[in-house]
């Protein structure tokens, strides 16, 4: 559904990456690998529509419903966990029972009425995963989703990947872990 041709991005006069060409036709999950500063986050931001000043072509074959998750989760400190999910602008209208079932899976149900300022970093990551679970998008762009996750949550996230794929969605996520786990690789180092 997504196709790029000679995609380049420059900050002032310096190219972050150049002539990136790939296509997401057959596979569902893409792992974006590359060294620090190779432009992984930048590429995800371009694909999600945050950065618009790219060069080259970027086309979507069907109507895209993007779910983007960056380094910053967009959580509001003075909203509770439940409110943060309920008012997340990436999600469609959802009910509290839906939120509760997701929070249960993530072991966050006891914290659902606590303001997110009092949560640990790992728990804040889990709120973002909860939004990921509830989303009905067809293109997921996740910036380093597996970073600093415990074993259990990592497994859960992989499960969610499978569920999302079964609905026909595509997932592109970045990682600096090069070990291949049956994901198609997009190697940023090749495009510099």
């Amino acid at each position, binding site marked *: 559904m997504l196709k790029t041709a000679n995609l380049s991005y420059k900050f002032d006069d310096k190219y972050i990456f150049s002539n990136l060409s790939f296509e997401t036709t057959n596979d569902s999950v893409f792992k974006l690998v590359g060294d620090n500063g190779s432009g992984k986050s930048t590429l995800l931001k371009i694909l*999600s529509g945050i950065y618009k000043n790219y060069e080259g072509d970027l086309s979507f074959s069907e109507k895209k419903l993007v779910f983007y998750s960056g380094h910053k989760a*967009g959580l509001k400190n003075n909203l509770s966990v439940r409110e943060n999910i309920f008012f997340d602008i990436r999600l469609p209208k959802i009910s509290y029972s839906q939120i509760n079932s997701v929070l249960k899976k993530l072991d966050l149900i006891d914290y659902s009425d606590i303001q997110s300022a009092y949560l640990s970093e790992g728990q804040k990551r889990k709120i973002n995963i909860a939004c990921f679970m509830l989303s009905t998008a067809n293109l997921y762009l996740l910036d380093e989703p597996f970073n600093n996750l415990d074993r259990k949550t990592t497994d859960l996230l992989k499960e969610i990947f499978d569920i999302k794929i079964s609905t026909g969605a595509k997932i592109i996520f970045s990682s600096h872990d090069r070990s291949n786990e049956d994901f198609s690789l997009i190697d940023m180092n090749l495009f510099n």
Partner: protein
Amino acid sequence: MIYFVKILKKEFLIYSRKSSSFISPVVFFLISISLYPIGISNDPDILKNLAPGLIWITVLLSTLISFQNIFAEDYEDGSIELLLASGQNLSLIVLIKIFVNWIFSCLPIIVLSMFSIFLLYLPIEGLKPLIISLLIGTPTICLFGALAGALSLGKNSITGPALMLPLSLPVLILGTQAINYSLNGINFSSNILLLTAILIFLLPIILFASVGALKLHFN
């Protein structure tokens, strides 16, 4: 549409939870207003003449504190990135943010400015133009504040507020003049009309400019 209602509710909730957003302008306003008689003079005649200008300038300065709220936190926590990724009409979102900010930072001050009747001996016939001119003038100031806030995002520089003050000069002049007119028994409706005209004229321009300025940080 559901999307914008959601944002509106979210903004309301955030502002109402964040007590500093509406308490600090109010506290600043009340303290300044009660300092003027001590600092300048407690002579009712002198204060009466100065009251329109003093109130307007104090309102201007106390709203200044709140303009950092409009975008700074959203920028820090990544919400603006999510808004941009959503592909929705950003100018409407910015308008909602300015509106909520106005309700929480300007509206309480406008209500409290009635106290100037006691504290600054403003004659009672000046109250009506004071309230009306503040109600119509402060949204324009919030617009300028949003532009300044969007331009100076991520930096705690003085450039932002400093930029906004010369821009709001016409509003200040027309606002104080409306009160002075009514104190002198002159019809002040032309000033109110001009303030409205400025608001309507500048609303799309400044909104457009603020959205542009906001996008500049994601380029």
